[in-house]
């Protein structure tokens, strides 16, 4: 059911683990829903110097987390925010339709980590990120 690329990332995920004292931390999902992601950021001069993730969830949740960290590591915040779910899916070859929400979740976790970075550093949050943040925290059902 999963592509080779998905299984590759799942079996040997890139950038998993914690960053102590991160500049930004994003948490989305919850255990009851079946997937929860933590994204840790180290940021210098608006560039994502380091990124790590911790994920509770299925194969797709772990693989998409891994791919998102690959896609944005070394990029500027602005570039990182441009990543779409289609970029994530393309990087993995294909995702089963029922697992598409995992790719959304991984991108949301990144958005939340960047949002958290702005808050922590008392930088005014760009409207776009604020809006997305509000959407993410409002989400009630598990896999919408």
């Amino acid at each position, binding site marked *: 059911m*999963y592509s080779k690329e998905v*299984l590759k990332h*799942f*079996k040997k*995920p890139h950038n*998993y*683990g914690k960053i102590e004292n991160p500049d930004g931390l994003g*948490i989305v999902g919850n*255990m*009851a*829903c*079946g*997937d*929860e*992601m*933590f994204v840790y950021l180290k940021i210098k001069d608006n560039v994502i110097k380091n990124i790590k993730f*911790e*994920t*509770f*969830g*299925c*194969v*797709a*949740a*772990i693989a998409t987390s891994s791919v998102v960290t690959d896609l944005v590591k070394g990029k500027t915040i602005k570039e990182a925010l441009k990543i779409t779910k289609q970029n994530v899916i393309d990087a993995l070859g294909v995702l089963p339709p*029922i697992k598409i929400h995992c790719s959304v979740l991984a991108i949301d976790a990144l958005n939340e980590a960047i949002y958290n970075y702005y808050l922590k550093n008392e930088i005014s949050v760009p409207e776009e990120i604020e809006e997305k943040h509000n959407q993410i925290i409002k989400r009630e059902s*598990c*896999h919408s």
Partner: protein
Amino acid sequence: MKQKIYFDYAATTPIDPRVVKAMEPFFNKKFGNASSLHCFGNDTKKVLEKNRKIIADAINAKEDEIIFTSSATESNNIALKGVAFANKGKHILISSVEHDCVLNSAKWLKGRGYDVEFLPVDQYGMVDPKEVEKKIRKDTILVSVMHVNNEVGTIEPIKEIGSICRKNNVYFHTDAAQSFGKLQIDVVSMNIDLLTVSSQKIYGPKGAAALFIRDGVKIEPLLHGGGQEMNMRSSTENIPAIVGFGKATELCLKEMKEENKRLSKLRDRIIKTLLKEVKDCYLNGHPKERVSNNVNVRFSFIEGESILFMLDSFGIAISTASACSSPKLEPSHVLSAMGLKHEEAHGSIRISLGRMTKDKDVDYLLSVLPNVVEKLRLISPHKK
């Protein structure tokens, strides 16, 4: 070549080579339609009745109380809908841990005006017979409680439930797909009116199953046609599959005692080792009233589908009823009915053993599984 080890016998079993051999002549030598009058038909008719007797004897039923069907799903559909259509009364009681084919047949009836009520289970997935007694009403037409649960392996108290149903003059159906060939079944002493058995769970071919219908039970057929199977299930009989089913049944009964002893030893070794060696690991289902080949455990902080695929990469095949593995992304109704929280249900896996499971297969499983759990916990935000 990478080794591939099967631990999913509760899903389906390979056909025993002795069964394959018994089936062989019936594909192209003895292929007659059992309803034909010539010698080709006569030969297969005899074989059909011989195998009907094997199934009947296995559960202490009479031959004319057995009808062959294509699957346990079909047998369960006939039992529920057939009884509902033929009897006055709208109330149907089923356990909340039934297989989807019973559950969804009952729900379908509910959508057509029947009053379907669910029997709760305890933390081990067991129905309390007293609940059956309490919930039976004047207009109850059928109680359906499975013999062994397919996910957690808990053995239900069907004898007690059967006697309560008989006393109250209510039909009792049990889905014995997971117990047939593993546990003794006596439809007379257990007061069973309808019972489902299946071939593909007992090293027989897919495409054969049976429904026991006690003499005198009022029931309507779902398939109408040539009137085969005593008018209860029209269709040309699938003789090769039925022959395989019969042979598989004979072998299971003959080897049942020894095989149960062997498998429960392996089962207990897996459970004991995992609970001891893996932190935050718990058994799902009953510790004692449990079918010999079922292990169902849960691991905190990680998710079942991930465990499945990680084990698959080591050539080990197990199953999970985690939400992420289901098309509806909902956790198992069985584990939920047992009172498990969603996050507990998500981390559950089923390991089911069978005839080809060897000691060394269990050694391998136990050498790999704790490491897989450890690895996934390293990725999880909730490791301790």
